[in-house]
């Protein structure tokens, strides 16, 4: 019997080691403080909660750097007399639990006045209540999950947390926008795939409803497991239904390989997705067969407006090692929205904690022209700007195809 017992003990140990390694925390917090300002000024911190390591780090680092840029500029301009702003960046590893810990850490810091983040809607669900209980405003540059501002019941929208705002549009608009674009370009039969996360599922549901409404057919609805690398089973299931396009709800670490595997297994139709696909890494992962794949993203292309170009130039001059990525402009606007609110709420406040409740109210009233368009919030904390753009992979890069306001 010794042989079999070695096998079984081994399997048990392996399972145990898996469980252990799953609890271990990876990556550290990445704190950097901003220079400038005079040392006698009181300090207020703007937090960032975003994935700074892992598969989505490209997006998270863009957010962190853009907020850092906004803070530096505010300090240089002495935007809030008597106060110096600092950045407090926390890594959420795109994981809800880690994000919650990061939020708890920031909420426990008496100097934190507002937070920019998160990237993922699923993480935001855990972060919202923690920050709300401390009256800290949260402005997300990237959460597109509808329920974050409108609650679970779409028919009777009710704002769950008054402290939560966002500068990007939601899946309720992004999904239907993609549906209309595909339908109007003559595609009537589509298969959908999502990754079972809040973002992906919400996007596909919104897409499906609008696409059926327009008269199109969903020929297959499949899901993938985001921890997997091989999607043969999904591709084999979709292929016999002969869709004219595949709509994917999820992010580029899975979307890129999915596109490549679809095409290498003979399902040669475009893959379309939301802003989660809109990153250069998608094209790297999907390879040369990604030509014609599409993604919607919120707002007009950052480099299509004068303000956006200025932002990109300043970002470049600041010398960050990572690009501003898909959400840089939104994060910059989110940070500036908080800073604009602070100009009113923090100016005469005795301490950061005392200024928190007023900041919530003042942030709701903010209205200025940001780099991604007009920045203002409706009664739910959603942005009032509903401009979206369809991007298409052309010649190995994302090219803006069509920018339109959703009505």
């Amino acid at each position, binding site marked *: 019997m*010794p*042989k*079999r017992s*070695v*096998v079984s*003990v*081994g399997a048990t*140990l*392996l399972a145990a*080691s*898996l469980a252990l*390694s799953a609890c271990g925390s990876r*990556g550290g917090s990445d704190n950097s403080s901003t220079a400038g300002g005079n040392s006698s000024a009181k300090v207020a911190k703007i937090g960032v909660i975003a994935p700074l*390591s*892992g*598969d*989505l*780090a*490209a997006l998270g680092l863009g957010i962190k750097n853009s907020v850092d840029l906004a803070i530096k500029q505010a300090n240089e301009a002495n935007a809030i007399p008597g106060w110096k702003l600092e950045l407090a960046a926390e890594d959420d590893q795109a994981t809800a639990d880690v994000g919650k810990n990061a939020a708890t850490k920031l909420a426990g810091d008496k100097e934190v006045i507002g937070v920019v983040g998160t990237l993922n809607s699923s993480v935001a669900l855990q972060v919202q209540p923690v920050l709300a209980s401390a009256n800290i405003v949260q402005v997300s540059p990237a959460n597109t999950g509808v329920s974050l501002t409108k609650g679970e019941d779409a028919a009777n929208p009710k704002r769950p947390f008054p402290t939560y705002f966002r500068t990007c549009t939601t899946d309720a608009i992004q999904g239907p926008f993609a549906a209309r674009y595909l339908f109007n370009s003559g595609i009537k039969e589509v298969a959908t795939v999502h990754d079972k996360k809040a973002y992906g599922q919400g996007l596909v549901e919104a897409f499906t409803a609008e696409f059926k409404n327009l008269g199109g057919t969903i020929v297959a609805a*499949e*899901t*993938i*497991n985001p921890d*997997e*690398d*091989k*999607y*043969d*089973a*999904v591709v*084999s*299931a979709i*292929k*016999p239904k002969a869709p004219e396009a595949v709509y994917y709800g999820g992010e580029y*670490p899975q979307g*890129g*390989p999915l596109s*490549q*595997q679809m*095409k*290498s*297994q*003979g399902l*040669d139709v475009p893959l379309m997705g939301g802003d989660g696909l809109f990153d250069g*890494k998608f094209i*790297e*992962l*999907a*390879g*040369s*067969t990604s030509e014609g794949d599409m993604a919607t993203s919120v707002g007009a292309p950052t480099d299509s407006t004068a303000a956006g170009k200025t932002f990109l130039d300043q970002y470049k001059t600041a010398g960050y090692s990572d690009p501003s990525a898909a959400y840089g402009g939104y994060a910059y606007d989110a940070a500036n929205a908080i800073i604009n609110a602070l100009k009113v709420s923090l100016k005469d406040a005795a301490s950061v904690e005392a200024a928190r409740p007023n900041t919530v109210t003042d942030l709701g009233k903010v209205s200025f022209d940001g780099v991604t368009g007009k920045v203002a919030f409706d009664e739910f904390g959603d942005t009032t700007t509903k401009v979206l753009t369809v991007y298409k992979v052309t010649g190995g890069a994302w090219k803006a195809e069509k920018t339109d306001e959703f009505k």
Partner: protein
Amino acid sequence: METFLQQLINGLTLGSLYALIAVGYTVVYGIVQLINFAHGEVFMIGAFGALATYLLLFQGQTALWILPIMIIGAMVAAVGTAVAMERVAYRPLRNAPRLAPLITAIGISVFLQEFIRLFFDKIPGTNFPSAKAKIPFPQIDVVTGKAFSPLAGVQIQRAAVFTIAMMALSALGLWYFINKTKTGRGMQAVSQDPDTARLMGINVDRIIVAAFAVGAALAGIAGVAQGLQITNINFKMGFIAGLKAFTAAVLGGIGNIQGAVIGGLVLGMAEAMITQYTGMLPDPFGQFGGSSWKDVWAFALLIIVLVFRPQGLLGAKVVDRA
């Protein structure tokens, strides 16, 4: 029928990959009775070795002739890792209680994963991307790209053909090595009785190193095949692949080389077929089909086989030394 053929090819591809890795578990087990749980990481390092070779020598090119050199790079990295781990971690524990090398194996597995995750981009003299996120794998002409269709309705992924072909070639090479070379026959002798083999003048230490090296070479090939199939690699890729390959080795009868190959093919085929056809059953059962259930079915198959045939499909090598 077309679906069946398609799944047959999917299953064969998956099975070939499992088989290539499973050989490493079974060869080492046959000789030193050690379940080398770090073998999945050898597979992962093989893939990174191929990528490193590509980035150092051929960055930006996609010609087919690069592929053999990448495979050699993968084998060098995998074999180097396996031989080093044998020398540093397993040999000092050769006569220790069995649990000691087993726990060491798990430790090495974690060590190698973290090493690649943290240091791949910091290797001096190179400019490799960080392994903290998925890294795109080079897409070589001919073996990647759009599917080709030999029969109407059946479309074959190019990398799948590569995987199956490499599996067939490796199986032939392995058969030749085990049965026709001096080292291979020495391996057979050591696996039957190491003490007598030593008395007959066989250098047992060398044979054990050879066993690790053979398994690692095949795992390196598997690493390239996997990279080409899914076009990206990451530091975690060895874990689940290693677990599945270990399952395949046990399924076929651990310690038995033909068993590992058969076990891999059976496991891959079962995964492809069960996920496809369970999904077509009428409603209360249909929900158990689809890709999200494939691991459940793979391990259920293992349990069923072990309940009715504990020695595995082809029979394990019976070793019971006091």
